[in-house]
């Protein structure tokens, strides 16, 4: 009796109905999903199946990536001053289910005199430490800071900045992050030199290069020139995840010519980089790109004048075909541009009246934070606090 029951079971249970299959498929990584598109026709078009897409979206939003464990959200806001007023960067710690608690944090002493346009590199922290930078004409400040312990450590000046009396660099801070192989904190920077004098530079004083990459290591407490040709950043959106610094560029490797936008990912451990091109339907001269980290995934928020925001997440670094359409936010009236993403599917935006707001992917609701900010000068940082001394060593 048991045996025949077993046989019937086998026939009956071999097939999993499609809606049940979706419950399993929606929890798979993108690489597997794309491969299993070859199983049968309906699976090749999973992301165009609204039923599947909703399941995938729900799982995506509710699945807490370990990157966010124990983290809080910082808002680095710049005011939009009235004439005569000065610019100020203000740092807020956001907490509460709906970010109803905003606590202002004081910048460390080196910024007490001038707190304008303070950048928090790569929108990230390493063992509770942030890397802050400020460019004020010739004056360049860069330091590590732990907001929990108030400890700060000034990063020394680079010997490469003023190699020649005839040339001055523009400095682009590309990233801050952690090299887990050497247990080291690193800061990556791009210098682009230009002639500041009216005279022709004497041949022997000409620099070999007109731009270069340099990297600072906390362990050696020094800047080293990087022998690398790598596209420089086209925007303020720079990220750090797991020892890799990401940004996007519209330049070629030698930063000479314009090229289609690409994601650049620099590995702080082996100091090599990888480019990921964007798929052709992501590229349009009218599109504006915003690079962000969404629930642990590298993502682009793509928008134009129509206030519809398309979100593409990257399935695999280096693979142009793995950009996947996951969310479309449309239209969000009065929303001008994103400023970053939170920990559980919140996306922060700035409105045309300067109000900073957040959008909840699961409820589709928009709420104001209660603070205003200047266009393209406000950023969200994912912060994990720690009482460790800077560098931990």
């Amino acid at each position, binding site marked *: *009796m*048991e045996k025949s*029951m077993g046989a019937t*079971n086998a026939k009956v*249970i*071999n*097939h*999993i109905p499609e809606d*049940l*299959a979706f*419950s*399993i*498929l929606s*929890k*798979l*990584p993108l*690489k*597997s999903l*794309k*491969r*299993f*598109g*070859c*199983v*049968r*026709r309906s699976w*090749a078009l999973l992301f165009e199946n609204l039923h599947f897409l909703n399941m995938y979206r729900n799982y995506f939003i509710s699945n807490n990536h370990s990157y966010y464990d124990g983290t809080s959200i910082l808002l680095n806001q710049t005011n939009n001053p009235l004439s005569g007023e000065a610019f100020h960067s203000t740092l807020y710690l956001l907490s509460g289910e709906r970010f109803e608690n905003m606590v202002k944090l004081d910048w460390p002493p080196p910024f007490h005199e001038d707190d304008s346009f303070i950048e928090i590199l790569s929108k990230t922290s390493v063992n509770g430490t942030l890397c802050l930078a400020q460019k004020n004409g010739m004056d360049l400040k860069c330091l590590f800071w732990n907001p929990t312990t108030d400890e700060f450590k000034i990063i020394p000046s680079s010997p490469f900045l003023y190699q020649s009396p005839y040339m001055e660099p523009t400095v682009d801070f590309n990233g801050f992050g952690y090299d887990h192989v050497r247990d080291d904190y690193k800061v990556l920077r791009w210098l682009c030199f230009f002639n500041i004098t009216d005279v022709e530079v004497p041949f022997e004083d000409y620099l070999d290069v007109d731009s270069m990459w340099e990297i600072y290591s906390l362990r050696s407490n020094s800047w080293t020139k990087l022998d690398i040709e790598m596209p420089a950043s086209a925007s303020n959106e720079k990220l750090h995840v797991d020892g890799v610094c990401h940004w996007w560029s519209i330049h070629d490797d030698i930063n000479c010519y314009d090229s289609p936008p690409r994601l650049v990912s620099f590995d702080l451990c082996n100091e090599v980089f990888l480019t990921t091109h964007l798929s052709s339907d992501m590229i349009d001269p009218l599109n504006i790109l915003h690079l962000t980290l969404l629930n642990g995934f590298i993502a682009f928020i793509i928008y134009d004048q129509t206030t519809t925001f398309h979100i593409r997440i990257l*399935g*695999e670094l280096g*693979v142009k*075909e*793995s950009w996947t359409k996951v969310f479309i936010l449309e239209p969000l009236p009065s929303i001008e541009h994103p400023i970053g993403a939170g920990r559980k599917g919140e996306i922060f935006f700035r409105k045309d009246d300067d109000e900073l707001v957040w959008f909840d992917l699961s409820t589709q609701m928009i709420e104001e934070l209660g603070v205003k900010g200047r266009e393209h000068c406000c950023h969200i940082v994912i912060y994990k606090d720690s009482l460790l001394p800077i560098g931990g060593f």
Partner: protein
Amino acid sequence: MAQEASSSTSSKTISLKTGDGEIFEIEASAAKQMKTVQRLIDDLGDDITIPLHNVFSKELPKIIEYYKKDITGEITKDFEAEFVKDLNDDEVKVLFLAANYLDANKLFEFLSQNIADRLESKSVEYVRKYFGVENDFTPEEESKLREERAWSFRGIKEDE
């Protein structure tokens, strides 16, 4: 026949009869987590042995074990890992389908995730067999798609 609960009012047990004729006891509070069972209790009363035609004696004890832990709030990541450790892919599938039939949501979601984890690096052929689905591509369509998605096959051992 179902036994009446001894001391506390909350420890009433329900009798469940599997498709292959075996009877298992489950606490009423655990039965509540399986919406199909609860619906049958609502219809038939809690003194009657509840028939579960599509669940069998191999799976039901395991499901009962899960919900026993659930009502005492003891489901941890470690428990869940132990729970599926010795099950092969097919055994998990049977449990998954049973959880669906019983409308036991928490177990269903956990098992979906576990199956997803098991299938992550598997081949297309394995997945076809596992889900019991037919390949409805033409050979040309399939090879074209495999080419387009070649990156997703990197590092994966395809069955012959």
